[in-house]
């Protein structure tokens, strides 16, 4: 419709001018919208910090320092490169307490699940390999009774295995094996059992028996020191002078044992499988060498009267 109404224009001319309403006109602002980008930026981002800068000479606020970067993105450039500071991604320092770390690591290894340690991530990380191997391996079973109130049948850490035999006695099969081994050594008519087995003693001195028929095991009586006395000297002194060096063993010595009661002889065992009996006084000779062990001799022990030695 036209803006001006001509409805009662025919009847009268002058009096209708006052009663006709004036058409309302919309205000049209034809000036374009101009945003002063530079002004806005100055006020809004006046305290922006160049993300490439390494040193700042002022104290920015947290919001200013960690404000997100602004500016248009280059659509042709890879945007993810901006977030990387490492070859494959973004690396930043994080803190995990040692106890929590160990807990998660062990859970992961044993059960296959651990909390996701990524920053801000929730949920779990699964390890399918470990989850399938969580059953314990077959262990050898022990006949154990760890109940401390059971007085008679308590085994504790001394429990033995189910399929173990606890006697040190060789079983019949082992006994037969041992006897077969020993019998093998007895074969051959000329050689005696001891020689064939390799157990022999080599005597090195000519005067094994003295003029009265006593062997070297008898203590010598023509010494300054009385070897039969039982009392202890009042004062003992530290050794200062080297008197004699006994040579004869080729490898290290494992044990030296005095002859009981009267220490006029001593046995020495060494790693070269030999045991030698030595004199202490007079000429200090090697009296006997015992051969027979195949490996090193670890320990020797005299009998009470000295006529037997035990050798290991």
């Amino acid at each position, binding site marked *: 419709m036209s803006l001006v109404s001509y409805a009662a224009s025919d009847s009268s001319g002058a009096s209708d001018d006052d009663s006709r309403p004036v058409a309302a006109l919309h205000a049209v602002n034809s000036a374009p919208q101009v945003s002063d980008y530079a002004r806005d930026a100055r006020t809004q981002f006046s305290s922006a910090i160049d993300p490439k800068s390494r040193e700042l000479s002022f104290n920015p606020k947290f919001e200013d320092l960690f404000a997100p970067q602004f500016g248009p993105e280059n659509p042709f450039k890879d945007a993810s490169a901006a977030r990387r500071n490492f070859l494959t991604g973004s690396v930043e320092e994080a803190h995990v307490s040692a106890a929590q770390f160990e807990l998660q690591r062990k859970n992961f290894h044993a059960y296959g699940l651990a909390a996701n340690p990524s920053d801000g991530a929730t949920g779990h990380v699964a390890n399918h390999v470990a989850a399938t191997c969580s059953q314990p391996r077959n262990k050898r079973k022990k006949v154990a009774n760890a109940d401390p109130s059971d007085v008679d049948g308590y085994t504790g*850490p*001394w429990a033995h295995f189910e399929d173990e035999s*606890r*006697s*040190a*006695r*060789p079983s019949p099969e*082992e006994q037969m094996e*041992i006897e077969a081994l*020993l019998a093998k050594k007895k074969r051959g008519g000329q050689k005696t059992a*001891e020689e064939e*087995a390799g*157990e022999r003693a080599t005597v090195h001195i000519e005067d094994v028996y003295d003029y009265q028929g006593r062997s070297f095991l008898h203590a010598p009586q023509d010494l300054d020191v009385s070897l039969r006395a039982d009392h*202890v*000297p*009042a*004062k*003992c002194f530290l050794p200062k002078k080297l008197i004699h060096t006994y040579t004869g063993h080729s490898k290290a010595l494992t*044990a030296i044992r005095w002859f*009981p009661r009267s220490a006029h002889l001593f046995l020495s065992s060494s790693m070269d499988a030999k045991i030698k009996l030595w004199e202490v006084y007079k000429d200090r000779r090697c009296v006997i060498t015992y051969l*027979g062990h195949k490996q090193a001799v*670890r*320990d*020797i*022990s*005299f*009998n*009470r*009267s000295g006529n*037997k030695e*035990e*050798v*290991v």
Partner: protein
Amino acid sequence: MRRFSNRKVAYCIRFNTDEERAHLFLSGMSDKKIICWDTRSGRIVQEYDRHLGAINTVTFVDNNRRFVSTADDKSIRVWEWDIPVDVKYIAEPHMHSMPAVTAAPNGKWLACQSMDNKIQAFACMNRFKLNQKKVFQGHMVAGYACAPDFSPDMR
């Protein structure tokens, strides 16, 4: 000249020097047992099976009525003769294994060389106590067993 075989390695051997039991000897084996052998019959008489590690030494005390054994499980056990249950068991957390033990001539003490470069003295009359004052340091033993010994006047 006899052979006694058990197929296990014996680390330590001691004759019982009592007159009535002069034919018996003890051997400490690598399978945690101490075995008593009879020389006359060649058979095993008694087994002492309480240690948890290979036996290092066996030493007689108290006039051959008791013996003391040390093992790789860092403990010392005192046994009565012929009873396979240990009378006393000494194991402290600071103790190291004792590969060499010597009894004193007057029978009152044991000198044990422990692997932490110390020689420690244990009383062995009735109470097996560690003598705190008699600890000898100064040797550097690199894992070897060096046998300590007493001079006859106990100094």
